């Protein structure tokens, strides 16, 4: 499977060369390194998590490789002599940089496998990681703009040419925190409460964490102008609450709070309202050349790709500003067409499904909750960005996992794969050895 994934990436790379210059690209050093990294990851998984789901790495490798290929393609904008304005702000080292991040990501994967031999090890660090997550999230909000803002989004930590998007890592840390918190509180949350209109509402003091999370996400939204991340955090927390308590009331409360929060912010903040305007009327008035320029370019790019796409290197995805990061999916849509986009979505879907499968299979409730939440948030992230690009929902800026340019997102995605691999190993492998824990009962699975 891994060989197949690498082969697809190689072929895509060759197609870019053919499409852009009419001949095969030179020796793909970058891709040799990529293949070596993936093989290394494979060996590490075999070594440290021998029973892991064998589909996880090939899926991630395929997505990551195609992302690198698309960045390689985008840094070359159009064919020589292509008319019109060529928009590319990618340096010529973008491919290599992305490859470097892939290396860091694979290293992070291996580190997770080595350090986290059992998912519940993380449970010990529930509050530590929770605090860390909040701090990471908060740092860009308190940093001066020059050290925190790129393209209007105040979500970065920038020092000396090196930038990190801490939100990507904070999401993982907070997922651990939520999972740890909910595992210990889930009975209280699930059972105590008043029944109103046939729905059991939780007690106010149990409701507090939800409200805190809700307020926190809104604060991020306000200070960092990052609606997408807020939506992801909120969605993740609600999903994990639901998994932990199985109470529909939590879902209703969550959705109600989300709608209320959206309504308030849309009316309070011009740029939030603008997103709705752009979503509903992208082609009205001066929108296509003004505030809706980017999404309109993405939509027209998708439409231009049509069923089969223009072919790699033959389209003009560079007309969409920042196509290499948040909008990279529109580049795939343009050059690979509906067929390619559906394939990519299926790969993502498969990855999510494998994650949820691992969550279902594992016995440890903490791991179950953690992986269930992370898998859901992966699906939600794809939904938010791809749905935003294709006009299904209002557009908010989040990265496309594995595909988008940028190290933070890529490394965080690989850490996520590490956790998935670890948990799937537990789920599929022989019963784990009991670990002395606060009175938790081990269920030994037969077979």
């Amino acid at each position, binding site marked *: 499977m891994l060989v197949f994934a690498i082969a697809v990436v190689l072929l895509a790379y060759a197609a870019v060369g053919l499409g852009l210059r*009419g001949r095969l690209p030179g020796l793909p050093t970058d891709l040799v390194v990529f293949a070596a990294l993936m093989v290394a990851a494979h060996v590490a998984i075999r070594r440290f998590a021998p029973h892991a789901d064998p589909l996880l790495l090939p899926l991630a490798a395929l997505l990551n490789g195609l992302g690198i290929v698309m960045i390689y393609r985008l840094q070359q904008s159009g*064919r*020589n*002599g*292509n*008319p*019109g304005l060529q928009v590319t702000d990618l340096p010529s080292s973008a491919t290599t940089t992305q490859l470097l991040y892939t290396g860091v990501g694979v290293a992070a994967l291996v580190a997770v496998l080595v350090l986290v031999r059992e998912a519940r090890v993380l449970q010990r660090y529930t509050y530590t990681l929770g605090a860390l997550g909040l701090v990471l999230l908060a740092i860009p909000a308190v940093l001066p703009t020059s050290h925190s803002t790129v393209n209007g989004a105040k979500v970065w930590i920038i020092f000396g040419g090196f930038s990190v998007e801490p939100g990507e890592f904070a999401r993982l840390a907070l997922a651990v925190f939520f999972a740890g918190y909910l595992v210990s509180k889930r009975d209280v949350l699930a059972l105590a409460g008043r029944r109103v209109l046939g729905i059991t509402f939780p007690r106010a003091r149990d409701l507090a964490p939800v409200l805190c999370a809700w307020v926190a996400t809104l604060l991020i939204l306000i200070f960092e102008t990052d609606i997408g991340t807020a939506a992801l955090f909120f969605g993740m927390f609600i*999903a994990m609450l*639901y*998994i*932990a*308590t*199985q109470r529909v009331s939590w879902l209703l409360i969550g959705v109600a709070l989300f709608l209320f929060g959206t309504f308030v912010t849309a009316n309070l903040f011009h740029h939030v309202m603008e997103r709705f305007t752009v979503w509903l009327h992208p*082609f009205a008035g001066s929108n*296509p*050349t003004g505030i809706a320029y980017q999404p*309109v*370019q993405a939509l*027209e*790019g*998708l*439409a*231009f*790709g*049509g*069923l089969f796409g223009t072919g790699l290197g*033959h*389209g*003009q995805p560079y*007309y969409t500003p920042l196509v290499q990061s948040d909008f990279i999916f529109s580049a795939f*849509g*343009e050059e690979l*067409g*509906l067929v390619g*986009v*559906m394939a990519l*979505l*299926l790969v*993502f*879907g498969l990855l*999510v*499904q494998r994650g*949820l499968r691992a*969550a*279902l299979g594992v016995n440890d*409730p903490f791991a*179950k*909750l953690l992986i*269930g939440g992370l*898998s*859901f948030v992966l*699906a*939600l992230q*794809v*939904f938010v960005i*791809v*749905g935003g690009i*294709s*006009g*299904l929902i209002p557009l908010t800026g989040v990265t496309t996992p594995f595909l988008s340019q940028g190290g933070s997102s890529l490394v965080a995605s690989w850490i996520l794969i590490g956790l998935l691999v670890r948990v799937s190993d537990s789920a599929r492998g022989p019963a784990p050895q009991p670990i002395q824990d606060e009175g938790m009962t081990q269920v030994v699975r037969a077979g």
Partner: protein
Amino acid sequence: MNRALLRISLACLAMFVLLLLNMNYVQAFETNKLATEPGNIRVFDEQFTYQRGSIVATGDGNDVTIAESRLIKGTDTYQRYYPQGPVYAPVTGFDTIYSQTGIEQTANKLLDGTDPRLAIHNLTSLLTGKQKQGATVELTISPAAQQAAYSALVDDGGHPAAVVAMNPSTGAILAMASYPSYDPNVLTTFNGTQLNDAYDNLAHDPAQPLLNRAVTPNFPPGSSFKIVTSSAAFSQGLVANTSTTVLAPEPLQLPNGNLLNNDGDETCADGDPPIIEAFYLSCNTAFAGLGIRLTAPVLRDYASKFGMNQTFDIPFQVEPGLFPEDQGWTDPSLTAFSAIGQFDDEVSPLQEAMLASAIENGGTLMKPYLVQQVLGPGLSLIESASPTALSHPVTPQVAGYVKAMMYEVTHNPSGTAYETAGPPATSIPIYGKTGTAENGLTPAESPDDAVFSCFVPAGPGVSSPIAVGVIVQGGGFGADAAAPIAVQVIQAYLKAHS
């Protein structure tokens, strides 16, 4: 917890299903709507990645490409190229990244392949992976005649001038040249700024190179209008036949008391000549008098039958001549001037060619056209010209009378064009009528406009007839400035068709 996880799984599934459905909606069902959104930059660029069809001149039996799209080396972008830019510019027009003129405009959908008649071909090329291609537009233009016409205009020495040649029996336009012209190749750049500069240069050039003089009614027809006046006089029974005498006093006193003179105030024969003599000598007073008797509405009616005051497509829209219902146009004193192609009469060289054409063709005016046929990629016939009559200005008998008179213009030693279009100049039997028109400018500013309308009927050594209209602005005498240009065009055409 697994029950909740399964529900979460369903939620994930629902999200992916929604995404897949929406992607299908955007990329399969909305493509056309999005493609036609104004300002779609990709669709705009796309026009350069397909090979736009060629425009070919086929009037001499062989194909001469006058506009084609060439692949820029090392790219997949095509750029328009006009091998003989200025020569054919009035015909081809130009194709810029923003707009088109001429055939490039009127046949745009065929050339760029978006015409519905090309849809089936484009669908098959999508499935077979072949490159989408535009249709080839084949024109009636004779490269020999066109080249001769443009060279003659250039050699004429700087007067704004134009030539149209057509086949009287079909209406096929054989040549359409205008001077000064422009090179459409300067407008094929992909650089918008460069394009705007180049266009502004042309548009603000006082010489007006972008003006297609061949089809623009900017010139008084002068004496060439006597073809219309005499046609009307024969048809209305004012004059029985070519030997019927007409009054040609010098000067002619107009109803308002003003005097109308012959050219150079010369007497016209004995003052009572047969109409044929008045015609080849081009006496103003004879035809002015006929015009007064015909009255302005009747004269205008015949002018319209000869194609004036009409708008039609050749395929770009033209209105080749004007005999307007201006203030006082029915005043007999002004009608007298209208009858000799002055006052408010205005024509283009196309109109002059149409006058000669109708007479040659026995009184039936064929509708002028430029597109002989359109071939889809793979040489399938998309459309083919079918010559149609525009009008029947005169009976064959009257056409015969006028034809005889036009013969004398070039073959009677006293005829106005004997020296320049008659036996001394060429052995080809040219039938013509000169015009030397006051253009409203003072002689110091600009001498008279030289006009010549002529035809060569089919006969020995002439496989297909040809009618030519020439106007040289400020050229002076029609016989001296315009007739030689017509002769050169005719010679070149007949040589290519011998």
